[in-house]
């Protein structure tokens, strides 16, 4: 086992203890607080999805909110159909739609909904990725193209009122019915459902990071051309991580709809996409775990502060982002790494004064 893998697993274990035991205890098992926290957990999944492509492969996807929105709407469509029973969803009537649109029909099935919530984002994300990466587009152009897609996609969703509910989104949803469990989103068990999803997503992310696939992506991030000369089809690798990242974002979106009990086109806004980038940057984009922690911390802070400083919150968030980019480019995770190194070097020096200097050199290397 490599040192990196050891640290990541230890971090995951610590994180799991905090989320599974610490948080519910701290919240006094209060259903309302737990629901709020479950929202952060869903957002943590979309942040780690971005970390996979941005930190892991150097591809800044500013369209992450679009794939998040697709998952969110997939779940909302299912729950809206459930709430409407045999009738047409209410907003369709208001928009003079007289028959259930074809695209809605399969969402009666929960299994289809869950699969579509993962695969539709993956497919759309993959489609954009194929065109971009076959043409060897890289760097800031990836950010521009994905951003343009997001803006266009949100416009279409708002435009197509009869199908999407337009500006209002999809509201008045039924609770989710799982086999033998009618999900109450204000409950400890729902909190654990969200926590379980996040843990699974982090584990998946860590596996990808530590697989040879993750290694090749890091190689591509550093020098895509060189990696081609080793025989790797760089475009395919980049497309694959875009698909995986989009599927995870869709998953987060589905969970988010469950927590908030509605889906809104604001989930597909530029500002939401930028917020995901900020969470990722604050936590540390190089690590899926750090990105998840970043999302939770920033949202926790927002929850506490935006009540007090309603107007100033966005400004504070913006300033935080600028400061992070300038002084902490690797986020809290990078800061932690730097501090450990500093501490170890200090300790090594002190030890070095007493014992043989070769000992010092060795400790230094094992970091």
């Amino acid at each position: 086992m490599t040192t990196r893998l050891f640290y990541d697993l230890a971090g995951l274990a610590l994180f799991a203890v905090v989320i599974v035991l610490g948080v519910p205890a701290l919240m006094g098992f209060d259903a309302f607080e737990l629901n709020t926290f479950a929202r952060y957990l869903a957002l943590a999944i979309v942040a780690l999805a971005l970390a996979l492509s941005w930190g892991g492969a150097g591809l800044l996807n500013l369209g992450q909110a679009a794939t998040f929105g697709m998952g969110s709407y997939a779940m909302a469509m299912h729950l809206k159909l459930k709430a409407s029973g045999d009738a047409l969803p209410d907003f369709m009537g208001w928009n003079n739609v007289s028959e259930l649109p074809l695209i809605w029909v399969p969402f009666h099935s929960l299994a289809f909904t869950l699969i579509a919530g993962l695969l539709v984002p993956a497919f759309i994300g993959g489609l954009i990725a194929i065109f971009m990466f076959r043409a060897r587009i890289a760097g800031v152009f990836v950010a521009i193209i994905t951003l343009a897609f997001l803006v266009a996609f949100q416009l279409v969703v708002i435009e197509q009122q009869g199908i999407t509910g337009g500006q209002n989104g999809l509201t008045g949803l039924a609770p989710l019915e799982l086999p033998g469990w009618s999900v109450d989103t204000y409950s400890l068990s729902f909190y654990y459902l969200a926590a379980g999803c996040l843990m699974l997503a982090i584990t998946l992310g860590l596996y990808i990071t530590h697989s040879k696939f993750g290694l090749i992506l890091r190689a591509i991030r550093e020098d895509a051309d060189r990696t081609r000369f080793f025989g790797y089809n760089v475009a395919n690798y980049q497309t694959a991580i875009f698909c995986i990242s989009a599927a995870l974002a869709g998953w987060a979106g589905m969970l988010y709809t469950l927590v908030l009990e509605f889906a809104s086109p604001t989930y597909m806004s530029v500002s939401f996409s930028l917020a995901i980038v900020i969470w990722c940057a604050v936590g540390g984009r190089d690590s899926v775990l750090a990105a998840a922690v970043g999302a939770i911390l920033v949202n926790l802070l927002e929850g506490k502060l935006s009540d007090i400083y309603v107007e100033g919150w966005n400004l504070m968030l913006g300033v935080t982002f600028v400061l992070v980019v300038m002084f902490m480019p690797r986020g809290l995770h990078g800061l932690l790494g730097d501090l450990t190194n500093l501490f170890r070097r200090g300790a090594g020096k002190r030890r070095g004064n007493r014992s043989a200097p070769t000992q010092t050199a060795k400790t230094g290397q094992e970091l």
Partner: protein
Amino acid sequence: MSHLQVTDLRVDFGGLRAVDGLTFGVKKGEILCLLGPNGAGKSTTLDLICGKTQPTGGSVRFEDVEISRMFEFERARRGVGRKFQVPSVYKELTVAENLAVAQSRKPGIWHALTRLSHSGRDRFEPILEKVGLEKRADVVAGNLSHGETQWLEIAMLIAQDSRLILMDEPTAGMTIQETARTAEIFRTLSKSHTLIVVEHDMSFVRTVADRIIVMNRGALLAEGSITEIEANEDVKTAYLGH
């Protein structure tokens, strides 16, 4: 029969014809040294063979397959490996990780997704020993010295295990001892690999070359053994005239 056959290869950069009707072949297991004054088109020739540059005309056949229109990663998969003139290791990856990337027999996504990044590490041990980096496996490549970086690159070529290896000035900046060690490694490599080496160091060329071709202004100037080349009047003029 040639392992690699280049025929009437041409490339234009704007108005400049950097490679102009070049024809030569390399036999399997041979070490061919490519000489010529600066700007003769040696690096460009290697670029054309490995796919970094697309030719304007002519053909490159490797193991009897035309490869001159393929993507670079397809040529690499067929067994063409390249060392560039400027050292190009992955500075953010460790030595072992660099080798894991280079070890690319199965470059597909599925294979990569079902392996951990450090799998196959024991296979790197003998390679690292060969280049003297066995104690540095977990060092980040950006922290290696200049010499170590060059050894790592050679180790990566060995790990990649291409049947045809293209080397651009592999001994530039090396000490005499390091150059001798490199020559020795190349002689061992040539038992199972074909090598094309661009090199200025004549004593190195004398030790490793089975055959030499000399380029000037993008075209073939002379071809033969080291003694033939050293006696060649055209070669003398080309070098002195520069």
